[in-house]
């Protein structure tokens, strides 16, 4: 699969966001691309995630976690690009439709977009697939509540910024 992490400058920021979530580290989620418009995340296969032991198919809950994370990262990226600020938005609701089981021993990709950012709510949609996005495993729609940037702790903000110097340029002495 062809991906362009260099072409999408928010990829590293989105990866640092995902790495802050213990469950996502445990799942080994890797951000392949992130921009103000989209996020693409890879979920590697693991036998620990099996939900249907007779076939080796992973549990629907793992797909839901991938979708929730991808949509959440898309919101963080969209807000960061639009307002140059960091917000972590809690999920209000999420609906996932499962079209077909994920094939065992292959990674699953989650492609999410934040298609509308209003003052209180962010609206997202996502597709999970393996070989082609035109042959999806699942579709999801989710809405996220926007909360003020002050709610994000300093430690978390630092972790997200990484080596990127923020607009104020005051992160160096805090490192």
């Amino acid at each position: 699969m062809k991906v362009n992490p260099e072409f999408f400058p928010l990829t590293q920021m989105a990866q640092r966001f995902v790495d802050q979530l213990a469950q996502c580290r445990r799942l080994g989620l890797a951000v392949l691309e992130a921009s103000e418009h989209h996020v693409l995340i890879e979920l590697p296969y693991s036998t620990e995630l099996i939900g249907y032991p007779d076939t080796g198919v992973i549990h629907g809950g793992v797909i839901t976690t991938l979708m929730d994370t991808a949509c959440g990262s898309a919101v963080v990226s969209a807000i960061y690009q639009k307002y140059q600020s960091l917000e972590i938005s809690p999920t209000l609701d999420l609906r996932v439709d499962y079209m077909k089981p994920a094939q065992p021993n292959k990674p699953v990709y989650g492609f999410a977009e934040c298609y509308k950012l209003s003052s209180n709510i962010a609206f997202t949609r996502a597709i999970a697939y393996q070989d082609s996005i035109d042959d999806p495993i699942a579709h999801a729609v989710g809405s996220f509540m926007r909360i003020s940037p002050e709610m994000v702790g300093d430690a978390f903000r630092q972790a997200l910024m990484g080596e990127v110097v923020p607009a104020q340029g005051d992160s160096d002495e805090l490192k």
Partner: protein
Amino acid sequence: MSSNKQDVSTERNAQQPGLNASIETKAPIDVQGIVKRATELNDFGHLLEHVPYAKFIGMQVERFGDELIFKLPAKDDNIGNPVLPAIHGGVIAGFMEMSAIVQLMVFMQTAKVPKVVDFSIDYLRAGLHKDSFAECRITRQGRRVANVNIDCWQTNRKQLIATARAHFLID
């Protein structure tokens, strides 16, 4: 032909060292037998032992009379938001989905593991870093599809942290 098959299965075992013999991916699983045994022993945790993902998030189940109550003990690996800290929304959803699957297997005596068709969850409060509980209600069961409602709470059963509804294909 048969030797070929053997090769594939040994190779598969070699690739999956974490997998123990009882959950070998190719063996068909006697769902009704397992459910029957769990009912006889009155130990429904027995069902969850067959599902690696249930172990991965650390969920448990207990029976109180005719009711099944599912429990997700606090676990560091399940955290999403590190600031609060709070359980990852996807883990709560996975826990509720697995609860619904077990509820269907036990009360509907399904021949196979029900397959999720859609799952819709509303998050009502942050799921804090403590034990969570879930109960399910089978709203309707048709011949092929069942509709299940799932509620999830932490300290107070009346203060839900999430509520979900889902459809499952049953055979």
